[in-house]
């Protein structure tokens, strides 16, 4: 009996020291941890506040802008076909920059390079609207992140950030999201941190926000220095999280508590 306990203890220690990846059959979207009311709000397009942002994005999609006098639609046509699955495979490698870029950066690249307009600021109403509109076209599609020799180092960097203890509270993301998911952190159920629905409408914000905003919230919770919006470290973390959620169903615009 004593022996068994020691052995079990050793196993428990080993597990917590080297947080194992969540097996595919156990992976759950944040949606699955929400109350019935919040799920109903996400499911009903007329009740989901994120849909207002999608609608606004649809208007911006066809609005001509910049020196080139071109709208997104002039080059990309009907987003329902041209943008299908696009958000579900971002961040993706951008040859010109030599690194992965997220959806917001991809949209801003088109604004600057193709439309000749200044980039939109992170969390600006317009950038959220355009990314919500593009993301909406991936709803129901599986997350597909292509990993090759070019993206591997960035994926590894994101993974390292996820597993590094940080902040005054000295916790890693993995210690909560791989090891403690489903348990209650002062009444909030800890989800698995799969970015299946961004941009989201978050009840706590009473607003739509990007994945980077959500990530920065968790850094602040650890009393860690949060990376600036658009920082390569955050994009690498996004890449890792999307890869970690590969195969899961994309559900933007999601609602979260």
């Amino acid at each position, binding site marked *: 009996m004593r022996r068994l306990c020691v052995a079990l203890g050793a196993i428990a220690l080993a597990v917590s020291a080297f947080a194992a990846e969540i097996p595919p059959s156990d992976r759950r979207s944040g949606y699955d941890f929400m109350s019935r009311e919040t799920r109903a709000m996400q499911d009903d397009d007329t009740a989901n506040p994120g849909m207002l942002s999608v609608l606004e994005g649809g208007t911006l999609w066809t609005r001509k802008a910049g020196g080139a006098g071109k709208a997104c639609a002039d080059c990309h046509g009907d987003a329902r076909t041209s943008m299908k699955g696009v958000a579900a495979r971002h961040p993706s490698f951008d040859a010109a920059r030599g690194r992965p870029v997220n959806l917001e950066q991809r949209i801003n690249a088109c604004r600057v390079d193709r439309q000749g307009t200044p980039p939109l600021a992170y969390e600006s109403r317009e950038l959220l609207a355009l990314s919500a509109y593009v993301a909406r076209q991936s709803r129901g599609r599986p997350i597909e992140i292509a990993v090759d020799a070019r993206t591997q180092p960035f994926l590894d960097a994101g993974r390292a950030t996820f597993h*590094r*203890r*940080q*902040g*005054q509270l000295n916790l890693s993301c993995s210690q*909560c999201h791989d090891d403690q998911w489903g*348990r209650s*952190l002062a009444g909030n159920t800890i989800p698995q941190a799969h970015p299946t629905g961004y941009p989201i409408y978050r009840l706590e914000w009473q607003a739509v926000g990007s994945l980077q905003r959500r990530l920065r919230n968790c850094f602040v919770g650890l*009393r860690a220095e949060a990376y600036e919006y658009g920082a390569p470290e955050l994009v690498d973390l996004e890449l890792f999280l999307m890869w970690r959620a590969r195969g899961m169903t994309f559900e933007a615009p999601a609602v979260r508590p």
Partner: protein
Amino acid sequence: MRLAAAVVAAWLTVGVAQAADSIPQSLTGAKGDPARGRTIVTNRHVGLCLLCHSGPFPEERFQGTLAPDLKGAGTRWSEGQLRLRIVDSSRINPATIMPAYHRTEGLVRVAPAWRGKPVLTAEQIEDVVAFLMTLKD
């Protein structure tokens, strides 16, 4: 010479006791205040304890389920053992998720507002320990 050896021996014993399982001496040299300790423990932004722990706090609606219930902590542990667990739980369990409440070294990317500061001051640690000692089964 004899005296010096005795002092070294005493220091070593304290050191060993501390490394083993306990910090027997008060960090401030004084006893803490259990009433203030209770306020710290139940405050989500100061003690943070109820993020992870539950405890005998009927007025607190939201408590954590990541850690043992604090009820009976003063029976299970001595004052020195509690002090060590609050000061730096990782000295007992390196893989622990419980933050080290009175340590500033070995931390990474601490936000500027908290840099160089422990989560709780020595006085606050003593208050928390004094309060936990009142949690008898």
